[in-house]
């Protein structure tokens, strides 16, 4: 690890001031940043430890019926909050489908949004990577493309955003609260993460020193609680990043879909909301035909940068299956194997 200064500010204002200079990075759960620092893929000169900042570890009701989640709430604590899981079951399922017990206990809400890509070339300082070292090129092209994008990528970068949590957040219109030297601002989730464009190194809308302080879920997000699921296809049933995932939520009225939400994970540099699919589902009776058409619409623009064309069909099927599961109804509790396409029949042993 490159040597660094370690500071522990007492307030958000102190933290924002301490991180104002380039080369400073915030430390919260540390599950991603310290890992990248060990490999040399990240090398901040100053770590600003925000893990003890007061007031950022609360879940609060908002006067307008929404919910505000402090940036320092741990992934495990949020997923195991029974009131939260009842109101936002797809988010709880996504959280529990990610990483391991140890990492979910450490990782924070804010840090999850700021996860770096798991592209192997990004993590290897000896490889060319426009995201890590602007203008250096992209050694990922021609390599194993299983974890690479099929939507929103370009010649500069084919990396994907690895978060599970962010997929239902995108579907449910979350809002990110950010504090900087100029004060506080709120950014729609859709605008928080960026596609590579010509500046793949700029992954989010955050400027140097800006701090994510909270996440808001709007009052309307709860209306999907009866029919909301997260489905994650991965190399093994636990402790693996999504090859493709989908968050699906339906609001049903009189046998028709009043409103649908769909977002995909593992397919782009940002959590991928599917507005065309949602528009296509609104007002229709739910069922296999509508779900198949919605999945087609969601992937209409997809193309493969390498040998990963299979992900386009996999994403269609994952989206349609997630919608089918959402229609069947949210389970009473998060399944023991969260978000698994291989979820067992009750009573049968999975691994026997």
């Amino acid at each position, binding site marked *: 690890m490159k*040597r660094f200064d370690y500071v522990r500010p007492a307030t958000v204002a102190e933290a924002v001031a301490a991180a104002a200079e380039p080369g400073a990075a915030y430390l919260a759960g540390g599950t991603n940043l310290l890992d990248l620092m060990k490999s040399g893929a990240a090398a901040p000169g100053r770590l600003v430890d925000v893990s003890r900042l007061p007031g950022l570890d609360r879940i609060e009701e908002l006067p307008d019926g929404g919910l505000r989640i402090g940036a320092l709430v*741990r992934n495990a604590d949020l997923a195991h909050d029974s009131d939260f899981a009842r109101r936002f079951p797809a988010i709880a399922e996504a959280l529990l489908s990610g*990483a391991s017990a140890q*990492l979910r*206990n450490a990782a924070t809400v804010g840090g999850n949004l700021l996860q770096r890509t798991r592209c192997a070339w990004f993590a290897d300082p000896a490889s060319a990577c426009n995201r890590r070292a602007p203008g250096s090129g992209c050694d990922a092209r021609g390599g194993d493309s299983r974890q690479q994008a099929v939507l929103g990528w370009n010649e500069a970068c084919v990396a994907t955003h690895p978060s599970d949590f962010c997929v239902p957040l995108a579907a449910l219109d979350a809002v990110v609260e950010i504090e900087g030297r100029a004060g506080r601002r709120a950014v729609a989730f859709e605008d928080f993460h960026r596609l590579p464009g010509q500046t793949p190194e700029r992954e989010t809308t955050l400027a140097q020193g800006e701090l994510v302080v909270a996440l808001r879920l709007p009052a309307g997000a709860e209306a999907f609680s009866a029919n909301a699921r997260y489905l994650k296809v991965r190399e093994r049933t636990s402790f693996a990043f999504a090859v493709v995932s989908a968050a699906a939520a339906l609001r049903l009225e009189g046998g028709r879909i009043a409103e649908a939400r769909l977002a995909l994970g593992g397919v782009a540099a940002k959590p991928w909301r599917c507005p065309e699919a949602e528009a296509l589902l609104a007002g229709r009776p739910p069922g296999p035909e509508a779900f198949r058409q919605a999945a087609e619409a969601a992937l209409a623009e997809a193309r493969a940068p390498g040998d990963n064309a299979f992900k386009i069909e996999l994403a269609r099927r994952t989206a349609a299956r997630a919608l089918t599961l959402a229609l069947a109804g949210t389970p009473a509790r998060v399944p023991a194997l969260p978000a698994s396409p291989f979820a067992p029949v009750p009573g049968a042993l999975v691994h026997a």
Partner: protein
Amino acid sequence: MTVTVTTTINGDAEEFVCEADETLLDVLRDHLGLTGSKEGCATGDCGACSVMLDGRLVCSCLVLAAEAEGRQVETIEGMARGRELHPLQQKFLDAAALQCGICTPGFLVAAKALLERNPDPSETEVRYWLAGNLCRCTGYDKIVRAVLETAADMKSADMKSAGMKSAGMRSA
């Protein structure tokens, strides 16, 4: 940059001086002689370094030592009460739920955390909860069975002691 850290480890007050870039695992093993926590991958994948930090199961390889300031750290060395092993430790011995043993401290700390949260887990729950602990000898089956049997033993011991208490109340 050096940092002076005051913390509590297995109930004892500790003070140490470390570099800012040293992890909690580095300090436990190299400064404090607590070598029960192991370094397998150093990237949070294998769980051999699992400890409890303020009652929360974490990988000590992904925690800076400086972050332990004012916290309560519990390691595998604090799991037995004197010479009396924790039921999980005794069961791992009885069931030979280990091969080379490198992963064992991490599995024990993680399994104890599991049973404290969920005293009656299903096999699926045990396997899913312990996914953050890798056994490269691949001895998972005995480990999972040992955890399930310990849970059953602890439950029946609890029921017995609860039964004795209620019997005592009746006779009083």
